[in-house]
């Protein structure tokens, strides 16, 4: 299997989908510069640089999608989505419904998020939960190059607006990408490791921290099941409930602020639908309620690391007070 970085896997998926469907177009601040090979293959009309104006980039994607194209808009870093919330939430997410189903909005918004570059809170802010909370949108955040490619292909073919988040810390990590070019269905979590004692549920870079934690737990005789959510909306509730019912112990892990994050949704789901099967409290590990600092050691400290995850799993696996 060829080895690609996540960033290149995104480029590959874009190229494959543009080749397959001439309605797919891509634009954004610098996409034609940074992915110039797409311009070479598909021409300067289908791959464009834009003015520095996230609102109109997103709005143009929304309008173009309603008009029959399948735009992919690169909005660079997640905090810049703040300038595109109206277009994404009030237009893309609502106008299908508000029009009684007259329009659909097959568009993808790309944005980078998360720790790894140390340039501070206006570039690194994990706001995926906002979009999960907003109707009409789908939300994807892959943890490997292979998933990035497969899920992006599915996102481009999906008839709904998809917010597709790329973890900055994973962007230049290489990974194997299969030769087959099939899209991977949205809404399906992946079980990366089976286990009976505790479930580690995560997405993005902390999936890898969960895997490391599972390794070290294994040496202590604790078998951890590691679930990569991959899609945050639709959320694979069945997979979440299945693992929780199996192990009875759950640690939910992500980099985003704990408060009203995706981990809150997962924990709430368990409190509602797996309550009688839980053997211990749910533990959420998430980022603090603070902007992400630039300083390297502080930035690292915002991300739940393998040690903390393993420690949480150990706490759950210990006998519980009555």
């Amino acid at each position, binding site marked *: 299997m060829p080895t690609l970085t996540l960033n290149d896997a995104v480029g590959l998926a874009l190229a494959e989908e543009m080749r397959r469907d001439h309605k797919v*177009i891509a634009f954004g601040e610098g996409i034609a510069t940074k992915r110039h090979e797409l311009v070479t293959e598909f021409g300067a*009309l289908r791959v*464009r640089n*834009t*003015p520095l*104006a996230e*609102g*109109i980039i*997103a*709005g*143009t*994607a*929304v*309008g*173009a*999608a*309603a*008009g*029959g*194209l399948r*735009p992919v808009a690169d909005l660079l870093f997640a905090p810049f989505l703040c300038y595109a919330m*109206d*277009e994404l939430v*009030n*237009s893309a997410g609502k*106008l*299908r*419904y*508000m*029009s*009684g*189903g*007259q*329009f*659909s*909005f*097959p568009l993808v918004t790309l944005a980078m998020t998360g720790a790894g570059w140390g340039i501070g809170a206006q570039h690194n802010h994990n706001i995926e939960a906002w979009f999960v909370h907003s*109707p*009409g949108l*789908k939300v994807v955040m892959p943890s490997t190059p292979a998933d990035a490619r497969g899920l992006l292909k599915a996102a481009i073919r999906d*008839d*709904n607006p998809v917010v597709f988040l790329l973890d900055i810390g994973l962007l230049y990590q290489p990974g194997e990408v299969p030769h087959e070019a099939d899209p991977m269905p949205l809404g399906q979590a992946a079980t990366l490791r089976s286990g009976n004692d505790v479930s580690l549920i995560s997405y993005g870079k902390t999936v890898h921290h969960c895997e490391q934690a599972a390794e070290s737990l294994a040496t202590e005789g604790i078998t951890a099941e590691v679930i990569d959510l991959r899609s945050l909306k639709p959320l694979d509730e069945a997979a979440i409930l299945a693992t929780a019912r199996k192990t009875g112990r759950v640690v939910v892990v992500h980099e985003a602020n704990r408060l009203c994050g995706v981990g809150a949704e997962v924990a709430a789901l368990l409190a509602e639908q797996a309550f009688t099967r839980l053997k211990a409290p749910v533990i959420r590990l998430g980022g603090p309620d603070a902007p992400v600092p630039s300083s390297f050691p502080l930035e690292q400290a915002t991300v739940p690391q393998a040690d903390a995850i393993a420690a949480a799993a150990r706490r759950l696996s210990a006998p519980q007070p009555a």
Partner: protein
Amino acid sequence: MNTFSNAVEPLRLYEQLLLIRAYENAIVRGSTEGRIPGTCTSVGQEAAAVGAINALSADDLILTNHRSAGHLLARGADPGRMLAEVMGRRDGYCMGKSGSLHISVKELGVVLTTTIVGGELSLAPGVALAQTMQGRPGIVACFFGDGAACEGSFHESLNLAALWNLPVLYICENNQWQAFVHRREAMSRERVADWGAGYGIPVRTVDGNDVFAVLEATREAASQVRDTRRPALLEMTTYRTRGHFEPDDQGYVDKAELAAWLARDPIAICRDRLIAAGRLAPAADAELAARVDSRIATAVAFAAASPFPAVEELTLDVYA
């Protein structure tokens, strides 16, 4: 007027003016009586809508906003289905999901109506891009208010459309009001055209209360956009003679200003011109008015008879 002679069917325009006014008045009455939810009426602005819409071709797409009844009716929308939508009924154009403020009618080319002020500006370039890239002939007419022109999306939209050569005709209905704020309290300049001039595109201001002038100016601007595949901006100076959203006592409105504009009522202007040109006899006028009234009465009855959507429809059409 030179424009007058060019109007193919001046009486049709006049009838549309009457229809819009009658429609809005029916809503005003209905909302006073609690039968119909309040809306943003377009009373006083009928000529801008009728003149502009009639200058467009069937291929053209229209984006509009919360104050859209004129645009929809002039485009041929059924007042019954519109009212059903206003009343949240099943037979509304949007199945009751929209209500009055964002009625889209795709089959008529009225797309992506939004009540986010400035929203239509952010969507128009993309709609035009889709037209262009798919080789479709129609241009995109984007109606917006002077208030919308204060949103950042105005700047971003005009810049992109000019830069990418997108066939968008920006039509600003400058009605001097932005809800409860007068244009003077909101704009550093008197005219939106003053801003538009910065984008290197054709810009023109027209008397929005003269339906024939609007028709002519829009025809010219639309054919410019059609021929050059580049945007243009047309500003229509007009006035919102009723309140922002019914009911509204307009206590905050300067009485002299309102009176001056009421004296320039677009329907009266059109009627006087038709009479002066010998195109409208009093009897014909009364007949038109009666026809319009009966259409609206039928529409109200239709809407009132339409059922509310079933609760199961609550989650229909969220996702494609």
